[in-house]
């Protein structure tokens, strides 16, 4: 997940909740926002349940290219 995406999703979710709490909306609009909110909160929950992250080492090859090397063993320490 891109952090920006998650951050935006959470922010939008907060907006939706406060818009709905204001109660100024037409019912149809409210239902639309509610659906969006449910989708967003599912997305956020899903993202938070994401699998374990990786530990990788960034090295530069002699040709100057960047390369990622897995090194989970560092976690054992």
């Amino acid at each position: 997940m891109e952090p920006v995406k998650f951050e935006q999703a959470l922010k939008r979710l907060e907006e939706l909740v406060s818009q709905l709490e204001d109660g100024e909306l037409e019912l149809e609009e409210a239902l639309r926002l509610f659906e969006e909110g449910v989708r967003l909160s599912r997305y956020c929950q899903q993202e938070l349940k994401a699998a374990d992250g990786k530990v990788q080492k960034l090295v530069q090859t002699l040709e100057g290219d960047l390369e990622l090397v897995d090194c989970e063993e560092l976690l054992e320490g």
Partner: protein
Amino acid sequence: MNPYLTVSELNQYIADLLDGDIFLRDFWLKGEISGFKLYQQSGHLYFTLKDADSSISAVMFRSRARRLEFKPENGMEVLVRGSVSVFAPQGRYQLYVEEMEPYGVGGVYLFLEQLKEKLQQKGYFDVEKKKPLPAYARRIGVVTSQDGAALRDILRVLRQRHRGVDVVLVHSAVQGAEAPEQIARGIKLLNLYGQVDLIIVGRGGGSFEDLMPFNSEEVVRAIYESELPVISAVGHEVDWTLADLAADVRAATPTQAAQLAVADLEHLSQECNQLQQRLIRIMQRRLQQESEILDRLMMNRAWQKPRQMVQQYQQYCQELRVQMQKAMENRVNQSRQRLAMAVSGLERLSPLKVMQRGYAVVHNQAGIIKSVENVQPGDCLSITLLDGELCTQVKQKEKVIRWNL
């Protein structure tokens, strides 16, 4: 062959002797600076190094002096690396300095003060240039030693708070001569790579000397120039390194850096749950409200007894029709009255009424005659009476002056 030497030959001989000595080609020397001079034109530095009993003159050429990270001053204790050779024109041997660094804690503090001021002027520590940390970082760049305790602390805490985070490590020495360049390179490499949300750069605690790489201009500049937010984590609660001053956020320890770097997953999850629950509660309440409104509407008589409603409307229509008729009648009566009044007014003003009282109207072809001035004897005049016309001829005329005319 001459039985004597020239001065040049002697100096050259001595120079060869000194230059041939392996030890004198490259060594470290400690001494106190005095008689310091910077030649503005050439950029070379000339000074004397001394201890309590002895002194030696020294020169540092511009190409070397340019790399100095501090400003040498008289009275400063320094370590220099260089060689000894002969300055033949004057027959003097002197020290050719390649490198120079402040010696001892006093010297180092002085050096740090100077460097701090210099970097401050360059704006490296400006608060307004600090970048905020992303709220939900998921990929963390780390520049530290892969063998150090700092990395283990960072990994452990990151995992505790948020198992989903990825870590991209750039290994570097964190102490010794190689460290500044390697740390700076690590920061640049991560920026080049770009796919991390922030960078933690640091090491576990250590002696004052161990922390020196984090006081180097190279590292400070790399931190300042980093596009990615940098958390410094030089494990040293008390003293601040220059890297700390340049970093966007300073953590006291690597552990704290990891805490600052990522949001607590547990906490985030709770936040998300709360939002979801609020969302559902609001919607339930809203739907309940709407259905209450609907219920109330459905209880209205219109839905209960439609025939009665229709009758009511019919009655209302009838009333309106009666009102309308009345209004029309009123309008007609008013008009009649106005007509009668107009007719009676007309009658009052009619010339016939006047003629009934014995008046007549005199006129000729030009119109009604109001004055004798417009009439000549012999003129034919018509006289209109109430019941007919008279045709007459004027015999004579006489003007009468009336008092009221």
